[in-house]
């Protein structure tokens, strides 16, 4: 009897172990498939270091999934991420939140690891400013990024070898305006906005009022009422001209969320958050597909086209087929420690018809928290997925139906924190 009990116990334990190992929704390395669905979450309620997880799933997740498993990557800096082809990069190093560009490796068995890292040339100097590692990738072997240690230059890097391959100095272009001593305390190019359209690199020019003792330099502290963008010809790598977005401020951010996007026809839409962290003069502008100037005939003004007052801002844009998907605050924004901007369920999805500028609420996806550090809308397998994350517990991606302007839950994440991004890659 005693022996029977021991064997029974062993079988029960073995059975239980097998049963727990068969949980299909855990991102456990198992199959050597080539398609991987990569999910990023921010795990911490309070950390300023963007702690979180990245996991790779063999199939498009459905139901409820955990983002923490045997093949996941745990660490810091789970923000500022962008994709190029089958590669994922982010602006912070997993091990210590250092700013730069880190490549994320996904193995065929689904194991996610932190790869090579491009740091600032002078991390001490770069630490004084925010934005080092703001980058854009042109092709497999060439990308551009900003290093705060050399603020008037744009750095070049090879995204395959993850090494700096030189820099372009645009001090002359920056200094076309603004005299020393005028109140401009910091000048830079490409700190917040880098985009490649055609063979042109568009890079914002920072003319900042802040000093190091007044908060983040270059963010919500524009000296000029207009936002300036340098247009750089990538064939000659020279400054071609400078264009301006009139009467706004704070172009993009550091591209964590899509702060600019290309429509199907190649038109580029750019978000300007406005005068302050809680808005004012926020707008979205357009550079048409074959143009290099701001389209004077079209802009989406927060106060004129969405509400009657500048009591909020646009915080991202997703463009497809002449329709923009935006998240916009449902009530006046408040900042500071107890403000609603980052902690309340106030951000609602809208579909905006580019031609008519009509706003249509997207139903089915919850009004949630700020997607500022997350991918609010992504396209995977031809599906448009909307991030729905609320303080009350909804936390996943919702599949959007453009025809009905409605969304339906695709998958929910129960472990690992607030969803931050989702992307499909093919492992080579």
């Amino acid at each position: 009897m005693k022996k029977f009990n021991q064997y029974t116990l062993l079988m029960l334990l073995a059975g239980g172990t097998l049963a727990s190992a068969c949980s299909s929704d855990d991102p456990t390395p198992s199959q050597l498939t080539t398609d991987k669905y990569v999910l990023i979450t921010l795990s911490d309620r309070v950390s300023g270091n963007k702690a979180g997880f990245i996991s790779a799933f063999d199939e498009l997740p459905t139901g409820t999934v955990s983002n923490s498993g045997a093949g996941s990557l745990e660490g810091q800096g789970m923000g500022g991420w962008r994709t190029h082809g089958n590669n994922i990069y982010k602006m912070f190093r997993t091990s210590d939140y250092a700013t730069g560009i880190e490549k994320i490796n996904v193995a065929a068995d689904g194991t996610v690891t932190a790869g090579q890292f491009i740091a600032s040339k002078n991390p001490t100097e770069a630490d004084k400013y925010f934005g080092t590692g703001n980058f854009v990738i042109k092709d497999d072997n060439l990308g551009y990024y900003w290093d705060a240690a050399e603020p008037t230059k744009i750095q070049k890097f090879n995204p395959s070898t993850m090494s700096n391959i030189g820099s372009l100095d645009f001090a002359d272009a920056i200094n076309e305006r603004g005299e020393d001593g005028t109140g401009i305390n910091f000048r830079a190019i490409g700190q917040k906005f880098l985009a490649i359209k055609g063979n042109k690199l568009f890079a914002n020019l920072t003319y900042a009022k802040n000093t190091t003792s007044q908060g983040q330099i270059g963010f919500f502290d524009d000296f000029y009422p207009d936002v300036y963008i340098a247009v750089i010809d990538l064939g000659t790598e020279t400054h071609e001209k400078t264009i301006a977005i009139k009467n706004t401020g704070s172009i993009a951010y550091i591209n964590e969320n899509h702060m600019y996007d290309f429509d199907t026809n190649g038109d580029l839409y750019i978000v300007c958050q406005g005068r302050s962290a809680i808005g004012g003069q926020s707008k979205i502008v357009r550079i048409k597909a074959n143009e290099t100037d701001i389209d004077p005939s079209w802009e989406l003004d927060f106060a004129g086209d969405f509400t009657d007052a500048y009591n909020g801002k646009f915080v991202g844009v997703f463009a497809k087929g002449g329709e923009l998907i935006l998240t916009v605050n449902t009530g006046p924004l408040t900042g500071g420690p107890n403000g609603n901007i980052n902690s309340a369920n106030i951000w609602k999805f809208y579909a905006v018809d580019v031609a008519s500028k009509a706003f249509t609420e997207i139903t089915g996806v919850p009004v949630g928290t700020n997607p500022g550090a997350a991918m609010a809308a992504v396209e995977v397998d031809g599906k448009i997925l909307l991030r729905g994350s609320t303080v009350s517990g909804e936390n996943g991606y919702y599949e959007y139906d453009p025809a009905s302007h409605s969304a339906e839950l695709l998958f929910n994440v129960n472990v690992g924190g607030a969803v931050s991004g989702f992307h499909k890659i093919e492992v080579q």
Partner: protein
Amino acid sequence: MLTFGTTYGQTLQFTGTVQDEGGQALAGASVHIGEEVAPQITNQSGTFSFSGLTSGSYTLRVTHVGYLEYTQAITLERQKTDIAVRLVAQSTMLEDVTVTGKTETQQAREQAIRAVVVDTRAIAEQPTTLAELMNRSPGIRIRQSGGLGNIVDVSINGFQGNSVQYFRDGIPLEYLGGGYGINNVPINLLERAEVYKGVVPVSLGGDALGGAVNLVTRRHVGTMLDISYEAASFNTHIANIAAYHSNASNRWFVGVDGFYNYSDNNYKADVEVINESANPTPATVSLFHNGYRHYFLEAYAGISNRAWADELKISLARYDIDRESQHPALMTNPYGALMVYNQGWVPSLRYKKNIGGKLALDQFVSYSILNRSRVDTVGGTFDWFGNFTPHGGIGESPRRSLSDIDFDNIISRTNAAYDISETHRLEANVVFNHNRRVGEDPYGMRFNGTDIDILSRAAIYAKTIAGITWESKWLDGRLTNQLVGKFFHFRTRGINGFMANATDLDHYTSSANSNWGIGNAMKYTMGDRHLLRASFELTNRLPRENELFGDNDTRAPNFDLEPERSFNANLGYRYQTPTLALEVTGFYRKTSGMILLIPVQPPFAQYQNLDSIRGYGFDIDISYRIGQYLRLNGNATWQDNRMVDVGEGTHKWIEGTRLRNTPYFFSNVGLAGTFPSLIWQDDRLKPYIHWNFIREFYLNHIPRDQEPGGFLGLFGKAGVPVTNVVPNQHLLNAGFTYFLPAQPISVGVEIKNLADAKLYDYYKIQRPGRSFHVKINYHLTKKS
């Protein structure tokens, strides 16, 4: 004791001095040299004298409560023979439960409110820091961010940061402004350190949640001089002086305590340097801007044994700390010029009086004038090799600064104890603390839309903590009970100067909060060998001034902060024989509204009430005497503190995860010996070796079902590969102290981190590797 005396018909004199291990005179020691000779009792200077002896052989036997008996065969031949005897405190070997008298250190160990007593006096000759000593104690983990002089944090049952409070002789250490603390005071100046886990005695007058450290200074008698000097790796120099004199009738006294610490702290550390491709590559460099210089000097004088005062003591302390800052929060990039200064003048007054043998009064008051400054004005940056690159501008860190901040701090502590009877005692304690901050920083924050320095407007913080204890003894004294009630109150006044706020510079924000706490502790002794303790406390930790005011930089004020509130319960059992001592302690805690620094709006962060923790744990402490000369110590601590009350929502999964960035298992094993008369007669060699282990722990929350498995989670790795981990660590220290015979000199030698292991108390802040330390101690006591 047998005595073998041989007479040769001469009359001789035999004199001597009895001292403790620290070289201090021991009054009241009983000295025997045979049945035929009347025993002597040492006087205030620790001296004794026999006369009219005949030449021959005797056996000297010296006893003193709280110390091991000392015996030595002596031969008297000359007309006068002088000898020096050093007694070893029983607490440094093993307590003998049969003694009827106990040292204060022993008494502290056996209070109803349990204290882990770190007996600094017993090993004062070792080149050891107080933090290292405390790290060898059960349930206590000291975490230090770097080398000598760097800030330390004490973790007690998972409580840390401001949840743990520090005292010096019962007075909150704030009054000494950082000039005196567990990270800098040499152990020579201390009698012991008491670490309270769980209930904190009313006499300490603190608002600690579950932990307190009381540094007990040495008490002196007669005339003495104690000097020590330590030289160590990394150009480290530590000097200490304590001098004291009282007149023969002990009616007045003067004294001075002081120390000087200096270290380049230029140990090697693993860092990263950036190559031409902008990739970080590993490098091992010597830290070049990590130095620390600190002196503390306190002179005092007083009168004693008067009709109106048992003691009235006036003190004046002065300290000055200069600290180089090598890196920001993590060892990620170097600074080469940033300096932090801290200095202060601290006059204080203490009055003690026992009235009628029933009522004991103890009043302390101090007015501290402190100044702190952070200087970051260099126009460029340094690399890890110390090379400077000018960049223009001001400051090498993100926070350029030339601050000059004054703090005025008044502390009053009143303690009164009344013996109702032999079995009942009442004790009341009130601590009042008033702090005012005002200063300037030409590069600091300004009120929004103005050029007015935030520091220029005064911020005021005051708190009152009162408590009362009823101590009673029952069952013929076998059961001791302490019932504790406490009252907490704070008020603050300042300008809510958060950058994004529409600040009204004429409008001062005030806030106040009051709370009550209650606790009970009991001790039950069973025979001579068993002791049981049980206690609980419901208490509060008031927000600190820096948490309410913020700083003049990126920490925004929050005048809405509320006290943290905590319940803790503790149970302990102690078993003791002449060769074995064993103590097992368990705890339970529930803490709500923990005050944490939370990012609010880049680059600002603010203290808010957030996390709640529930936990339990235990520690076990064993001491075993091996033969006559060796003692083996070991302890292990396991804690299971976990997040609770996270609530529904996206982060519900955090519920039940382990308290992050907090060690949950650590253990120590030590072997120490005492070998007398090794080279010369009456010399002593005391070798020791200590091993310390810390189980890996994680910087961030890890799902509970993916924590390492095995017994108590002590084995293997987490189920999810964790990047931000502080790995398993082993620290091995070994050394010896050597006492010259009949001389007031001893020498201590120690090698720390013998295996040259890479050690971290905090993520990515490396501690020193192997280092060598030599310490010379000189103790002189004037004989009467």
